Every structure is written in structure tokens, then in C-alpha cells.
């Protein structure tokens, strides 16, 4: 690939796409994690009806392809008179799908915390709220980190599906440029490189985070 093509056409186009990709990834990651925390916590601590609801949410959104979910949101909802913009449809889709996966990790993390610690906290006079905040959440966060971090990496990659709902981020820009110039191989190798960079950076960041939060002996399995 000549440097001029790379610099004059590919990089500017992909940079535009990158901006939109980040605008898709960051809100979806935060909202998805929040959803996951809510759903996972409800599964364990919530009243029976909310626990059941969370279970169905998780099962459906983990059991069907993200493609289908995006299609339903963008192409299907208009049948009901609901018209979502591409960006909104994408973010909602990513949030709901990602949240379902996060909730499983959170649920597993909460379950792995020994119940006796709750008793000890109560016997010291901790209120329920304080117990959650000071004892349960710090531990659950650490246990859930590998899984949730993994899910974040998946989100970065699956954000490429925004193309399907006509949201033109990295992949979309690549497709447009490639179709225009017929240089598919080069353009998509560049697109791939961009994603690789994002994924690798995120992976390194998460590894660092895991190291920073590590507590001796506090591994995946409860002692």
C-alpha cells in the first residue's frame, strides 16, 4: 500500500470512524456495566419478581445474536411506530446485550463471597447498606473484574456491528472507502489494525487495573 493512499485517504476516513466508534463504545460500556450490576444484584438480592425478570432478561439477551437484537431495534420497532436513530439504536442494543453478560459475571462474583462475612459485619453493627458498600462490593468488584473486563473487550469488537444499523463508525467508513476505491484488502487491513490497537490497549489497561486492585490470596476461588 502506498504511503500516500494510506495517509491521504485511509487514515482520515478511519479517524472519523474511530471517533464515532469511541462515542458508541464508551457510553455503551458504562451503561452496560450499570445494567449488569443492577440485573446481577437483583438476581441475588431482589424480590422474587425482579429476580425472575432479571433472569429472563439475561437468558434472552445472551441466547440471541446481537445482530438480531439490533435488527429488531432499528428495523423492527418501526412496526410499532417507534423510530430510533441509528446511533441510539446501536447504543441501546449494545447496552442491553452487554448488560446481560455483565450481569452473569456480577452474579457469579456476588455468589462467591462467603456469607459468613455478612454475619460478621452485622454482628459488628453494620447496616445492610454499609455492609454492601464496605464489604460486599469491594470484593465483588475484584471477583467480577476478569469477566467484566473480557466483556468490555468484546464490546469494542462488536461495536463494528453498528454498521448494520447504518451507523457509520470505523467499519462503516472502511466499507465506504473500500467500495469507492476497490482496495478492499488494504482498507480492511487498516480497519483491522485500528481495532487491534483498541483491543490491545484495553487489554493492557485491564491487566494493570487487575494488578492494582489485587489482594494477596484473593483469587477467583473463595478460600
Amino acid at each position, binding site marked *: 500500500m502506498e504511503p500516500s493512499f494510506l495517509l491521504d485517504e485511509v487514515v482520515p476516513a478511519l479517524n472519523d470512524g474511530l471517533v464515532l466508534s469511541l462515542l458508541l463504545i464508551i457510553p455503551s460500556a458504562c451503561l452496560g456495566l450499570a445494567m449488569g450490576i443492577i440485573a446481577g444484584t437483583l438476581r441475588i438480592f431482589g424480590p422474587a419478581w425482579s429476580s425472575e425478570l432479571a433472569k429472563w432478561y439475561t437468558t*434472552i439477551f445472551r*441466547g*440471541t*445474536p*446481537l*445482530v*438480531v*437484537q439490533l*435488527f*429488531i431495534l432499528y*428495523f*423492527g*420497532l*418501526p*412496526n*410499532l411506530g417507534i423510530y430510533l436513530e441509528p446511533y441510539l439504536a446501536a447504543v441501546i442494543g449494545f447496552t442491553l446485550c452487554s448488560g446481560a453478560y455483565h450481569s452473569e459475571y456480577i452474579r457469579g462474583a456476588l455468589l462467591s463471597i462467603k456469607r459468613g462475612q455478612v454475619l460478621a459485619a452485622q454482628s459488628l453493627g453494620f447496616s445492610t447498606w454499609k455492609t454492601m458498600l464496605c464489604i460486599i462490593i469491594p470484593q465483588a468488584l475484584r471477583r467480577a473484574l476478569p469477566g467484566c473486563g473480557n466483556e468490555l473487550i468484546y464490546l469494542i*469488537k*462488536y*461495536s*463494528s*456491528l453498528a*454498521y*448494520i444499523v447504518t451507523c457509520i463508525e470505523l*467499519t462503516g467508513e*472502511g*466499507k465506504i472507502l*473500500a467500495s469507492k476505491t476497490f482496495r*478492499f*484488502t*488494504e*482498507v*480492511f*487491513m487498516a*480497519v*483491522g489494525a485500528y*481495532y*487491534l490497537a483498541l*483491543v*490491545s490497549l484495553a487489554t493492557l489497561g485491564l491487566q494493570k487495573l487487575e494488578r492494582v486492585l489485587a489482594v494477596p490470596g484473593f483469587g477467583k476461588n473463595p478460600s
Partner: protein
Amino acid sequence: MLDSLIVVRDALPYLLEGSLVTIGIVVGAMGLGLVAGVPMAMAQVYGNRALRLLVAVYVWLFRGIPVLVLLFLFYFGLFSLMGLNISAFWAATLVLGMRGMAYQSQIFRGAMQSLPQGQLKAAMALGMSELKAIRVIILPQALRLSIPGWSNEYSIVLKDSAIAFVLGTSEIMSRAHFVASRTYEQLALYITAGALFFLLTWLGVRGLRVLERKVSIPGYAQQI
């Protein structure tokens, strides 16, 4: 509402045919992943430095690049560059298979490395060559240990197969899209497509669980 159900009912045979295509893609991809993933894992565990590096780079590439990008890259780019005239179906199967290799090799590698290494030594002490020992002692156990990971991989590949619709394959999603653009019953049809995927996931996971039970050894893997 009734109209939607009628449209769905009429389209169902067509969609179900699409399930066969979907299953074809998934089976092909997982098969490729398995057949090539096992040697890759062995290369990583027992191979020399160059081999290990090669595998590591391959895994990094195919786990780091999104499926959609890989599909575009290979179907519109690399395959035609190489002069290959591959159908959408096979392109999708190959790409998902290559990606599957990357993931499955890691599943298998984890399984192999979790086995107590003393077994290999014992086998060699009995006179087996390293290769034979690996084939006869390590592989059967590692394969069993990998089944849960495959179950997970199956559901991922199944869902990713839907992305292949962008290439115009004839699987569930493409067909749902086709019917929807003619009947305008998008919501009903895509929900049906989702239900089909859900069913296929459920059946596959169930099937793998049966497989796990059938090949299980009493008391095995409890100590790991």
C-alpha cells in the same frame, strides 16, 4: 397482529431451511477450529520458540479483529486477491473457522496445561515416545476437559454466524431479511429469527452436555 403471525407461519419453512445453512456454517467452523486448534495448542505447549510466537501472533490477530471486519477483509479482499472464487457460505465458514481456531486452541491449551504433568513423565518412563504419550495419555483427557469450553464456543459461533448475512449467505438472518423486505413484517420476522437462534443454542448446549456425560470418567476432574 394476526397478519404478522400468518406471514411468519408462511415463512417458517423457508426460515427453517435457513437453519440448516446456519448449522452448516457452525459445524464447518467448529470442525475447522477443532481440527486445526488441537495441533495449534500442542505447538504452543510443546513446540519451539518460533512456533509458539507464530501461534501467539495468529491468536492475537484473530481474537482482536472483529468478525465483521474479518468477513469483509477475506471475502471482498484477500480471497479475490488470491484469485479464489469462494462462495459466501464457504467464506463465512472459513473465516469463522479460522477465528474458532484461535479461541479453541486456547481452550485446549488451558485444558492440557491443567493436567498434572507427571502423567507425561510416567508414560515416557513406560517407554512411550513423547508423541505417543501425548496422543494416548494427554489428548483424551484434555479433550474431555475442553467440552465445557466448546459449549461456550458453540453458542458464540452460532451467534456470530448471523453476521455472515452481510455476505449474502442463505442462513437464517439473510432469509428473514429477505422476507421482511417483501412483507414489511420486520418485527415479527426478526423475533422469529431470534427464537430460532435461541432454540438452536439451547439444543446445542444440551447436546454437548449429553456428550460430556457420556464420555465422563467417574470422579474425574474433581481434584483439579
